[in-house]
């Protein structure tokens, strides 16, 4: 059992943390996208972090910031002295890494900020890019917090900017889903006409360069309900998550979700490869056919398709990686609990495995990670009992390590399920790997570091508590979901609390740092300067 030592001196007991300067340093912007790098590996190499399996146990909680919303879904970006993160309910904030004080706040970006914060570096400036779910894409000057431009994708009538964009050179790739998934709950709404898609914007101006819908057919009337309300299709195949970029091939890879309405298309629940320069489609590989589903099905509404499918999206971005044997593969994890490895040139299936049972909240929900040097694909499984799932297969919440070459399970560390638990212990959030370890957050609020070689938990922290915060907001830790933890330099940054869907809401941004003076494992429980978790 790990020693959890509560320290209080560094956490202010009164007043707000003050910044010495409101100007962030622009040096050392990291990471390079939701996937940490454009390939989506979610692996932080030693060039970007000192944290590894040998010292993760020396992480100490340095400060806590209280978000304005209990459903936080932004992924931070750091420079050498600042954390930039979307604060759902407020906007985009720049926090001092030393004490969490607020350097600046941008409220132009909207209160529904929902993506990773991305960076575009130029000679003398740093531009931040972020998406808000309904508002679109915003570019913000990192030094001043001033909005540079705002952009929306015009090709879809009610787009949702739910997935994180990706900045590559002078282009910003923007995944597009649709608000129609929620509008379908309204019985007077005629579901549905929109398609998911991928857009490319000019990074200097926000001007749209191209748009590639996942459904090319025009929707047609397919029936009526309540006498007058017209049903439309095909629709859907939304892109819920960030694309991954293969620089060698000039290709973007991304996953799609279900069709909202019939007729189903061959592009739903699929992995799609596009030419990043033109948006031209190179290949499509569908894994679940005829999956038509919308939120009308959840409430038994008239917009639910007659033969509703299991809603088995690809919520996790694909990973493009080279295996130890030298083969390039695209890895994709589905809400069904299945993992697929594909040939990046053709989309042909190379191997598949099914470590999870699946369900409409995963299975594999937000993201996997790959350590290409070790040849390990880390697969977090949630298996939250939700929606139609095969009841003859037991849920398998926990962490799996798969051999990148052939999908063989190298190890599996289950999360125990027991009565009285804070919440289901599934690993739904995106994970992040570093040298010799992988870090995950559970829906039960636990933060867990697993050793790469055998899956042993080498550090853990229970975030389900109330924290004093540097901004005076009561900060509550709860379910960890959505983008998951970030490892950067000597820090680990985790948003705890996610009130979306069925999870437990909370609003704590936890900033951990490697201890400069490592705490002995047998230290007394009140002997230090921060809320600290030592190794197990």
């Amino acid at each position, binding site marked *: 059992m790990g020693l959890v030592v509560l320290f209080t001196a560094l956490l202010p007991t009164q007043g707000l943390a003050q910044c010495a300067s409101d100007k962030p340093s622009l040096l050392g912007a990291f990471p390079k996208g939701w996937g940490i790098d454009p390939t989506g590996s979610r692996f932080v190499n030693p060039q970007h972090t000192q944290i590894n399996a040998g010292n993760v146990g020396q992480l100490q909680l340095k400060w806590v910031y209280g978000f304005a919303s209990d459903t936080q879904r932004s992924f931070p970006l750091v420079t050498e002295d600042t954390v930039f993160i979307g604060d759902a309910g407020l906007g985009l904030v720049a926090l001092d890494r030393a004490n969490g004080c607020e350097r600046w706040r941008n409220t132009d970006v909207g209160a529904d900020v929902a993506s990773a914060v991305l960076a575009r570096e130029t000679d003398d400036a740093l531009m931040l890019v972020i998406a808000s779910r309904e508002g679109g894409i915003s570019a913000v000057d990192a030094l001043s917090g001033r909005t540079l431009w705002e952009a929306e994708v015009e090709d879809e*009538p009610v787009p949702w900017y739910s997935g994180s964009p990706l900045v590559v050179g002078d282009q910003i790739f923007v995944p597009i889903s649709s608000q129609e998934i929620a*509008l379908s709950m309204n019985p007077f*709404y005629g579901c549905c006409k*929109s398609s998911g898609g991928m857009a490319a914007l000019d990074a200097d101006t926000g001007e749209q360069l191209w748009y590639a819908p996942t459904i090319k057919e025009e929707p047609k009337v397919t029936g009526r309900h309540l006498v007058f*309300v017209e049903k439309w299709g095909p629709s859907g195949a939304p892109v819920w998550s960030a694309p991954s970029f293969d620089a060698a091939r000039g290709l973007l890879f991304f996953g799609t979700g279900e069709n909202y309405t019939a007729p189903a298309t061959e592009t739903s629940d699929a992995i799609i490869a596009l030419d990043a320069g033109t948006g031209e489609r190179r290949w499509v590989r569908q894994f679940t056919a005829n999956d038509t589903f919308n939120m009308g099905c959840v409430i038994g509404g008239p917009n639910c398709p007659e033969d509703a499918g299991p809603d088995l999206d690809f919520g996790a971005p694909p990973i493009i990686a080279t295996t130890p044997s030298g083969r390039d593969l695209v890895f994709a994890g589905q809400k069904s609990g299945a993992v697929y490895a594909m040939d990046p040139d053709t989309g042909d299936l190379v191997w598949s495995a099914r470590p999870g049972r699946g369900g409409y909240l995963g299975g594999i929900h937000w993201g996997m990670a790959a350590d290409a040097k070790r040849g390990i694909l880390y697969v977090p499984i949630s298996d939250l009992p939700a929606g139609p799932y095969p009841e003859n297969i037991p849920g398998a919440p926990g962490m799996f390590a798969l051999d990148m070459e052939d999908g063989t399970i190298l190890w599996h560390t289950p999360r125990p399920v027991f009565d009285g638990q804070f919440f289901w212990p599934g690993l739904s959030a995106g994970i992040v790997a570093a040298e010799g370890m992988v870090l995950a957050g559970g829906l039960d609020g636990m933060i867990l570091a697993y050793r790469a070689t055998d899956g042993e938990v080498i550090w853990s922290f229970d975030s389900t508590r109330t924290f004093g915060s540097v901004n005076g907001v009561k900060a509550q830790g709860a379910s960890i979901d959505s983008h998951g933890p970030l490892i950067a330099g000597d820090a680990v940054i985790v948003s705890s609390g996610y009130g979306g869907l069925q999870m437990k809401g909370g609003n704590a941004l936890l900033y951990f740092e490697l201890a400069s003076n490592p705490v002995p494992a047998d230290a007394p429980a009140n002997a230090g300067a921060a809320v600290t978790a030592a190794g197990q």
Partner: protein
Amino acid sequence: MRPHQGLLGRRLLAALIDFFLVPTAAMMIMLVTGVMEGPEAYANGVPWLRILLLGVAGYVLTNGWLLWRRGQTVGKWLLDIKIVQMDDPDARPPLWKLVGVRALFFGFPHAALIGSWYLVLLDVLPIFWSSRRCLHDVAAGTQVVRRG
């Protein structure tokens, strides 16, 4: 009989009747016209104007003839009360006031169905003041009295 005697209970009951009738009519209009049926109605996050106008249309459809001929809504007709000019209790207000001003407020009950319930309260609460006039009465320069 004093014009305000027993008026409060009748007005509230009449408002309750109209509260159900107007949204019902608005929903029928919505179904037939399909104005809230497609994504364009929700584009830019502002479906409110269409919803408010549906409320006005529902109000006019339900009460237009009665307002024109008798200065009453269906609820007021059932409860035997009517709308008159504030400065002349014997004069029926012009139709433009009854529809063009009061009906805008009666879009609120429809909007209440989608979450803006506080607008209804804002309109109705002044009826508890001594003048027994709602906000829409004040705006239109009208009052409600017992008939006969």
